């Protein structure tokens, strides 16, 4: 059965670990993210429109666009969902035995930290997912590479929050402040077999450009290399460090300060920030297009 985009937006959680984790990053991107939940509410917030009939018409056009497979929106949603669920797969098996014990200390008994190599693949795959999903949703706006980069660089709202979470939870916490240099070095030393065994890569590999694992690895390395500068600047401009990311999280992930390697794994399993903010980005873009097309 086809997914209903309006239900996805209506059912986004208003609280819980994902929302708390994202809110903990507000310090770095102040005021950028508001947890927009509810399809009609999102339409009203994005467009400023209050006329109910107009809101309904915008919603209906957005749904029609989403349901037209040729438009790429469903693939983008699939990518946002898959990259989150695949990266948490490893821990999810361990978690299955302890339903109802969603504390960090309980979690420690059931999981071992991910090796740096696996964490690097997670980080790079998520970044590439962002680029590919961006193209599915927005096309390639403008007439030049410069235009495209300007569109990419104009991230705000939930998209910027997603990038802040990527850099903090999948970069700085598990790999340290020099995460981008470390990850680039590691990915350059990898071969196709390192990817084939990685659940995050396997989750979305069909959507990563490249004819085979070698080609995909090369695309991933290039993408990471070309965005490394942006990520480094983001971390230094916003003052993101392992210490202050953990400090902000410690309010609800108790006992995490001395177990940073485990904290990364815990976030992997418990925090679905790609799917959550991805649905919000998708809804926003569909709504922006619909109100303009009507």
């Amino acid at each position: 059965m086809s997914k209903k985009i309006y239900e996805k937006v209506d059912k986004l959680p208003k609280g819980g670990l994902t929302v708390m984790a994202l809110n903990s990053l507000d310090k770095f991107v102040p005021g950028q993210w508001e947890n927009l939940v509810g399809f009609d509410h999102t339409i009203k917030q994005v467009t400023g429109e209050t006329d109910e009939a107009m809101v309904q018409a915008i919603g209906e056009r957005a749904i029609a666009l989403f349901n037209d497979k040729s438009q790429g929106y469903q693939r983008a949603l699939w990518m946002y969902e898959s990259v989150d669920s695949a990266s948490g797969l490893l821990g999810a098996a361990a978690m299955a035995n302890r339903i109802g014990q969603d504390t960090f200390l309980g979690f420690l008994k059931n999981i071992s930290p991910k090796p740096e190599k696996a964490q690097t693949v997670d980080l790079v795959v998520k970044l590439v997912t962002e680029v590919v999903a961006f193209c599915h949703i927005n096309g390639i706006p403008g007439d030049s590479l410069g235009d495209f980069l300007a569109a990419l660089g104009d991230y705000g709202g939930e998209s910027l929050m997603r990038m802040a979470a990527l850099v903090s939870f999948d970069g700085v916490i598990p790999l340290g402040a020099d995460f981008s240099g470390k990850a680039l070095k590691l990915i350059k030393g990898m071969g196709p077999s390192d990817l084939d065994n990685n659940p995050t890569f396997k989750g979305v590999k069909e959507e990563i450009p490249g004819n085979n694992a070698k080609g995909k690895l090369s695309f991933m390395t290039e993408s990471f290399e070309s965005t490394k500068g942006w990520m480094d600047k983001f971390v230094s401009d916003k003052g993101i460090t392992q210490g202050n990311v953990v400090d902000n999280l410690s309010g609800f992930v108790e006992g995490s300060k001395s177990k940073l390697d485990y904290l990364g794994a815990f976030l992997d399993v418990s925090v679905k920030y790609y799917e959550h903010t991805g649905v919000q980005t998708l809804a926003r873009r569909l709504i922006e297009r619909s109100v303009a097309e009507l």
Partner: protein
Amino acid sequence: MHLVRSLKRLVPLVLVLVITLTACSSAPSKYDQVQEDTTGFSAPAAVDKTAEKGGTFNQFFPEAEGDYTVVPSQEKQGFAEYKLKRGGETVAMLSINDTISLPAAAAKYENATTMVAGFPSVVQGSTATGLLVNDRYQVKVLSRDASFTEADRAAWLEKFDLQGLSQLEADTKAFRKAQKTATPDIRTAPQNSEPKTAPTLVPQPAG
């Protein structure tokens, strides 16, 4: 008596079933009809195959000017959109779309009483002003900030290269065919819906 006893035993089971089924099925939504109409094998495409490529429209958008910057935002088949920013804040969205995919969008200009730069123009809802070029290409400016008024929208509509857009060669054959077969409110308002969903497309004079 035997029957009564059997029924009594069944009651808890039925209750559990009812509760489970109610919890699993989602509440009806006002969007269920459009969901049904736009999914499945016979569902119409949301974007017509002959719609102009979004990239074709880029050349007609206004340039940055004064405090304003113009940043590319979306480019899909039959649609292109830019953000109009001032001081880093998005104050409006600028768009061009091919109404071949949505004839109702073009139909609202039939009774337009206002012209902008020689093209029929309407104010739509509380945040948008649009105009129609060659009975086909809709150009819109949508306010995203209260400071960006209806007058600002009309002024920015004139900054598009509307003459250039009017020279754009259209696939007129496909377009006329689509116009001929179009119902007034295709997809945006199912035929059995209340008329209250339609007022969105009633033209109003632009200021």
